[in-house]
């Protein structure tokens, strides 16, 4: 649906290379982001996801290639001239200004009349559920509230692309969940294009239209959350996204999700035989680890189905065919 609306990409990264003095960096990056999409760059720290985001924002110069927004190159523009807005992980707001001044700063620079600034800020504070906080200083607000204001500040500039650099990583798990939900509501309401960076695969799965899984400066896979989860392109992706068993077989290594493995008491006709090692109740489901030869296989079972099992019981495991990988394909991916 998203792609049908706009055929031309909003943001294009074309064969972009950014190398640091020490040789680290990202090479030959190509990515198209369409109007109204949330695209998430996902990967461990040091994989280059933040580097790409900062080249889009203009905080880093690119070594070669190009970055365009609406077909116009922005690669040579300083950050203040780019139609992007960034939400940082922390230290977002200026502590010496109250919320209103924080929000009005960019609008004043754009020579927008005072009464219009006031009206827009009012509207935006309502959108991020922070109405009435105009006079507060950043230090008087919680981390989640500060991030709402930071998002409001970015949205007020009506950016072509909203950039978010691990915006919720510094927040408590509960608040983080709320913020994700809020972000999705706001994004749907405004139809804004978002490039999001996170190391949290759960967060990426939750909010994205498309996920770019990165590893050591390279795109391992680009796809929708279900594609990345159900059809991991590389062993790295299979391992990084969600829980995964890597079962050694004669042909190679078979990647099977714990929820796709069924467990039966006794020596049945399942593919694998083993003994129950641990049983952990994790809320609405139960994690049962089974020792099979020298491997431990993880399975997720519904609460109502585990009670007949005990530690040390002989069980048989069965599963539908998983994704096969070569024995020699390293977990580190292609690089």
């Amino acid at each position, binding site marked *: 649906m998203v792609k049908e609306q706009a055929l031309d990409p909003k943001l294009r990264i074309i064969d972009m290379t950014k190398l640091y003095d020490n040789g680290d960096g990202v090479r030959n990056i190509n990515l198209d982001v369409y109007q109204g999409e949330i695209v998430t760059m996902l990967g461990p720290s040091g994989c280059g996801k933040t580097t790409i985001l900062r080249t889009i924002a203009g905080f880093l110069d690119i070594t070669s290639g190009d970055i365009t927004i609406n077909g116009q190159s922005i690669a040579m523009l*300083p950050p*203040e001239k780019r139609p992007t807005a*960034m939400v940082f*992980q922390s*230290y977002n707001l200026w*502590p*010496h200004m109250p919320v209103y001044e924080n929000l009005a700063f*960019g609008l004043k*620079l754009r020579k927008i009349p005072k009464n219009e600034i006031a009206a827009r800020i009012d509207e935006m504070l309502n959108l991020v559920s922070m109405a009435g906080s105009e006079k507060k200083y950043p230090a008087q607000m919680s981390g989640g509230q500060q991030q709402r204001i930071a998002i409001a500040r970015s949205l007020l*500039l009506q950016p072509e692309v909203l950039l978010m650099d691990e915006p919720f990583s510094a927040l408590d798990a509960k608040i983080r969940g709320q913020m994700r939900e809020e972000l999705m509501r706001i994004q749907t309401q405004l139809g804004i294009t978002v490039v999001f960076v996170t190391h949290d695969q759960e967060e990426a799965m939750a909010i994205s239209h498309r996920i770019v899984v990165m590893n050591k400066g390279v795109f391992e896979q680009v796809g929708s959350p279900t594609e990345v989860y159900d059809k991991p392109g590389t062993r790295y992706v299979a391992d990084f996204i969600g829980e995964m068993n890597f079962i050694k077989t004669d042909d190679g290594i078979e990647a099977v999700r714990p929820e796709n493995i069924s467990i039966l008491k006794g020596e049945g006709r399942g593919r694998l035989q083993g003994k129950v090692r641990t049983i952990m109740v994790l809320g609405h489901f139960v994690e049962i680890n089974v020792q099979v030869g020298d491997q431990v296989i993880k399975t997720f079972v519904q609460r109502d189905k585990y009670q007949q099992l005990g530690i040390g019981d002989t069980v048989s495991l069965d599963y539908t065919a998983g994704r096969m990988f070569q024995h020699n394909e390293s977990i580190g991916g292609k690089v």
Partner: protein
Amino acid sequence: MFSLLNPRKHYLAVGRKKFFDFLMLAVFLLFFYGPLSNLLMLAFAELYNYPDLIPAKFGFRWWQFVLTQKTMISAVWQSFIFALTTTALSLFICLPAAYGLARYKFPGRRLVMFSFMLTNAFPKIGLYTSIGIMYYKLGLMGTFLGVVIIHMINTMMFMVWIPTGSFSNVHRQQEEAARDVGAGPFRTFIKVTLPLAMPGIAVASIYTFLGSMDEAQGTLLVGVPQFQTMPVMMYTIIADYNVMAAAVYALMMIIPTVILLILLRRYVGPDAIASGFKLK
């Protein structure tokens, strides 16, 4: 209660460590406030003959003497003008340097930071003499600029070190956020970086101002007779062996300092100063 004033009883009552702490404090207080109270006594003495412990007569005679000196008003003015000019000029020169030192990690950075201490490590009089020789060649002897430069040499360390610390403490993301919403580098500096670093800059300015108010040696060498600041006049009076007038003078010189420190006490604390001496 008064039995604790007996050293032996005190020692036994509070224990060895506390006793020595107390002793140290007593010695410190004596060293710190002793000269000051002596100064106060001298300033209000009218008749004080050796070997009396306390002056025979108290009064305002020497205050009258000092305040009616013709050069007095001009010295006060000159001191203030030199202090203000020195502070303003150091801010102008040192703040960009401090920002550069805080933001750019170039090789030899520590050495540059360290070099600002060197002027304070040398014996001043030797430094001033060699500067004096240069001044003659450059025609700076006895000029306003010449005196200001001498004052700046003394205060440069504060003006570079402390603001460098404050600038380092301004998070880069706060500057980036300003660039991101459309502010250019200069506006970002004025609107975001400078206000956030202001406490440290205020401390450095106070030290510079006070340092300049207090400077005598260098001014004496390169400024006299064209310029006579308060500390220089003080030297002249002491040279005349007028102890009471000197005491009055000294007290008068303390007044602006105390006022300044009270006004800005919020900024002048161990933390603010310490942040400037953190070499990162």
